[in-house]
């Protein structure tokens, strides 16, 4: 028997669906649920209860992680509205954005070749600012204009930025070791 997970993630935490989210409230609700369902509460229970508890706690973790991160939260909201973000298949981007991507990528390569951790950290900071800008745009598109195709494109851009961020981290790690 599996628990009835018909609820969407917003309903699970009793939050209004939307990109803008009360993070403190989400944290609190997540903890309230985990304190009821976490396997540590059922360590001395029978196998059926243990299994149920693991399924519930897994579901709560998945829901929490999805809503906590802006990228996955936007993707999830779009899914709720029947919009596929097509991050794997749709790589069409505005030319200006692509140009900037190339510049950043060159910047990472140059900094790496020059053994320049400070330059990489500077790039990471610029990337964080770019990310905040895209997140603000998502809020307007999803909660305000309800322009889902434009929001889907913004999600794809955010995904690009995230990948770049990972590359910078890997480059910093490589230089540190």
């Amino acid at each position: 028997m599996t628990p009835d997970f018909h609820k969407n993630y917003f309903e699970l935490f009793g939050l209004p669906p939307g990109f803008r989210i009360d993070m403190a409230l989400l944290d609190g609700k997540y903890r309230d649920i985990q304190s009821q369902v976490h396997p540590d509460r059922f360590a001395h229970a029978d196998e059926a209860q243990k299994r149920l508890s693991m399924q519930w706690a897994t579901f709560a973790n998945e829901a929490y992680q999805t809503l906590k991160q802006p990228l996955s939260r936007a993707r999830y909201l779009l899914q709720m509205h029947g919009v596929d973000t097509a991050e794997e298949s749709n790589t069409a981007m505005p030319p200006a954005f692509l140009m900037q991507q190339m510049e950043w990528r060159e910047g990472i390569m140059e900094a790496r070749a020059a053994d320049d951790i400070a330059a990489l950290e500077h790039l990471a900071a610029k990337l964080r600012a770019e990310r905040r800008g895209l997140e603000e745009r998502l809020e307007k598109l999803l909660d305000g204009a309800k322009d889902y195709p434009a929001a889907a494109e913004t999600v794809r851009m955010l995904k690009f930025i995230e990948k770049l961020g990972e590359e910078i981290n890997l480059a910093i790690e490589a230089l540190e070791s």
Partner: protein
Amino acid sequence: MALLQIAEPGLSAAPHQHRLAVGIDLGTTNSLVATVRSGMSTVLHDEDGRALLPSVVRYLPDGFAEVGYAAQAKQSVDPHNTIVSVKRFMGRGVKDIPDAERMPYHFVDAPGMVQLKTVAGVKSPVEVSAEILKVLRERAEHSLGGELVGAVITVPAYFDDAQRQATKDAARLAGLNVLRLLNEPTAAAVAYGLDNAAEGVYAVYDLGGGTFDISILRLSKGVFEVLATNGDSALGGDDFDQRVFCWILEQAKLPPLGPHDSRTLLTKAREAKEWLTEQPEATITAMLDCGMSVELTLTSETFTEITQHLVSKTLQPTRKALRDAGLGPEDVKGVVMVGGSTRMPNVQKAVGGFFGQEPLNNLDPDKVVALGAAIQANVLAGNRADDDWLLLDVIPLSLGIETMGGLVEKIIPRNSTIPVARAQEFTTFKDGQTAMSFHVVQGERELVAECRSLAKFELRGIPPMVAGAARVRVTFQVDADGLLSVTAREKSTGAETTVTVKPSYGLSDEEITRMLTESREHAVDDMAARMLRENQVEANRLLDAVQAALDEDGALLDDKERAAIDELMGRLRAVAGGGDSPAIKQALEALNRGTEFFAARRMDQSVRRALSGHKLSELEMGEES
């Protein structure tokens, strides 16, 4: 006058009764057992009043094993049969063990995990660890006066799935019911955090005898949330000993040594390292079998210099963990030092320098892990009804699957909060392909060859279709012990095939039973008696649990459902006291199955209560918009 009833120790513990549970720190160098007594976490001592049990096992020709100080005293005399630091071999193959050729053991390369040839036969690291755990179990049962309900066993946070599974198998082999595998830094954080009412972000720097862990935790309102963890499961105090040992060889210009001399000098090296904790220099003197003698002075400066790269090796994972947590050293409110190796002044200094603050040393670094594990064991055994705190831990290394070209497709990324499940769809490569083979790996690298191989399995019976038409959904589930199970299911035709794999190094229940049967203290009769007793205990426990659930939430059932459960309970009660083990087992399983829906309803209700207990208006708002 009515006679008062007293239960046999460990049997039929009524809900209000204190259940005996312990925390065990199964360390590379030393192991400990602790329990909560009268609300206080305490380390249990042996008959001579010693808390530490050296993690040393010596096998004797008659098949017996000596464990602890007695074995440690013989390690120079009988190096082949005296296994030290067995934790380094858990879940590891020969090629994973650095310096294997310099160790005095006869390694046997077995699939999955190395084995050791001793005078008492070939032993796996799981069996060797079980010997240590057995001694601790007996110490606890003797000291607490009853059978244990269960134990929390600690593992390094950076232990991979193979190492965790091996540890759990060892505990089962030692006759322990494992309530949870708990990460050592998290256990330390529990002991420290509860003691100090800490709030904020803390780093736990845990340098043990053979492993290094760094965990970054956020402590807030009774929740211990691990943000990131990193480490090196083959770096610890042993490596510092090894450095000093090599330094002695170089300085004294010694030829290659026999096992006895090597062991003697390694012991001298360790003693010198420990001496330098308090003193500016250490003298090393030894007479060797080969006729040469050693007389050297090791200063604190030289020691710092020759071990500098080892200390640096701990700071690299520390930086990674902070980066994964999205934090810098300045965000950390306190650094808790754990593990005997953090006593080294050069380690203290380096960690203090990195975080820009004095590390916290107010709990004994040798005992803090066991103390924390005991506190958690007490909760998990059900001795505390009020839910005081919650541990949210993570997996240390990404889990993935091999795809075309020997590349890894990551399914669950490192630092995911557990329990966690993820699914990914795969398809066939050729027309008419009816089987797929899967290779499950753990690690951060992109190439399969550079990750740890966990398991290989095949899914057969896929209906023949054109390439790319089949839909095989592979689900990874990691439980609260950090252990993985994998399921593959073909769903394009509606026909489902499910394969659940246990990693190949894991022992099956049959193997565990066989090992238990083979060991001399569990003859076949003992096994049957033990099985019966376990079933009886389990039956009483389940009856108590169901009764408590009925008392509390009986209203969730209609009359028919209630009658069905009462009937199942009656049947179990009728056989529970008797000697028919299979009948008890059968009635137990029937009651378990028959109450599953009730358990699910109760869980739903508790979640609803948890949410509505706060602010009703928010819930309604959520439903309107």
